[in-house]
């Protein structure tokens, strides 16, 4: 069939000439190629000590954010848990007491907030679902561990460090 784009090229397979059949020139050329790589800078990043820069849309470990006064933003509405396709998020809500006013922004807060990092697929839907801008997947890579129970991250690991006053 005729090519419409005219981009088709017919390759001709000629029988190998003497130099090609001797292998040696091609081998020497190949050796030259590898030797040129010998002197190139290695592209290895020595991971635990050096880290590769993440891209701007990288999704890593979750963090629960605080507002500008250092109060937790999460109001335990459960939208993140609902939106999660992997069923990784659970929480228990509690009512804020008057003396906790500078700890939690809303009147309802998450007493327990757990994410199972083995279930999580880092899709970022929780981040999109959150009406309070309380959860972001802006952390580093989730570290490895030995036991399944250690991958269930509670508030101690998820909540941002308190603001320094």
């Amino acid at each position, binding site marked *: 069939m005729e090519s419409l784009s005219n981009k088709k090229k017919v390759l001709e397979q000629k029988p190998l000439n003497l130099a090609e059949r001797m292998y040696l020139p091609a081998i020497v050329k190949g050796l030259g190629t*590898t030797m040129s790589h*010998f002197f190139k800078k290695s592209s*290895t990043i020595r991971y635990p000590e050096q880290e590769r820069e993440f891209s701007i849309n990288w999704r890593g470990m979750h963090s629960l954010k605080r507002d500008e006064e250092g109060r937790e933003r999460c109001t335990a509405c459960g939208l993140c848990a609902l939106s999660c396709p992997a069923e990784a998020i659970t929480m228990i809500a509690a009512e804020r007491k008057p003396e906790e006013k500078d700890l939690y922004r809303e009147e309802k807060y998450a007493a327990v907030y757990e994410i199972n990092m083995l279930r999580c697929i880092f899709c970022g839907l929780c981040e999109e679902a959150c009406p309070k801008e309380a959860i972001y997947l802006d952390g580093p890579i989730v570290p490895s561990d030995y036991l399944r129970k250690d991958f269930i991250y509670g508030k101690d690991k998820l909540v941002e460090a308190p603001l320094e006053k």
Partner: protein
Amino acid sequence: MDINFVIEKFALVTILFSISLVIAMYSTYAERKVAAFLQDRLGPDRAGPFGILQPLADGLKMFMKEEIIPSNASKWLFMVGPGLAMLCACIGTAVIPWGQDLNIGGRVVPLQVTDINVGVLYLFGVVSLGVYGVMIGGWASNNKYSLLSAIRAASQNISYEVAMGLSIIALLLMTNTLSLKEIVAQQHGWHWNVIYQPLGFIIFMVCSFAETNRAPFDLPECETELIGGYHTEYSSMKLGFYLFAEYINMFVSSAVMATLYFGGYNYPWMDTVAAHVSPNTAALIGTVILFAKIFAFIFFFMWVRWTIPRFRYDQLMNLGWKTLIPLAIANIIVTGIVIAVVNKF
């Protein structure tokens, strides 16, 4: 027998044995480093500075692994295989002249374990015996892949031994001797045999790649087809022996190539150097030069391994029987004619 003679030979053998083991150990490290550099990586760098202790860590790992002998394996032969491979790899160093004679307290100490007058043939014998370790191990494992690999190793070694022997005959026509010591002595200064026998050297080198089962001819241990090849069923230090034997073989064949074709301990302007230093220092400089050549060859082995893909089995056989052997025979004829003409006039 002279007691000094016994001590001297014993010391030489011990030193050679430990040098081969250390070189084999660090060849594994060098191989990984070379591979890494050729692929823009860093290679092992965690154990000690620049990963220099990596071979020790690997050795410790090998010793600590569980030793498994398959229940249907032929137990005795299963154990003989790796030992034989190691033995054949190590005894090759005995006839190679490592340097000029030393003079220690009035005694002339040759840096060669034994100068038998059929040294070249002895090396061939050792090489041809080396395949038994692989064959016995592969058969005793009672595993199809191991057996296939053993058979491949046998046919490959036999095929390439022919071409190797023929390529060496052209060299022997020139040297008129089978003693390695004399062959090296004839290459004084820059009269290296490779200048007179370039084709013979290329054939010999290709064959020694095949004899040591190194890439691109590492068909007996070709992972894509044969799992682990002849050492599929091996574990622990028995596997270690096989891997070690390969590296010692590489060291020995590098030494043989350096000795036969690249002048051994000879180097250009060696007479000028020898005039300025004591004879013993000159001899030791020669030994250092020989080891530098050996390391260059070992590097070349690795460089080729990480450049050229593995040959297919029929390609291997075609190359051996239809290319290398006719070329080697042509080389013998041309060399013979040239020598006859030169001797006439």
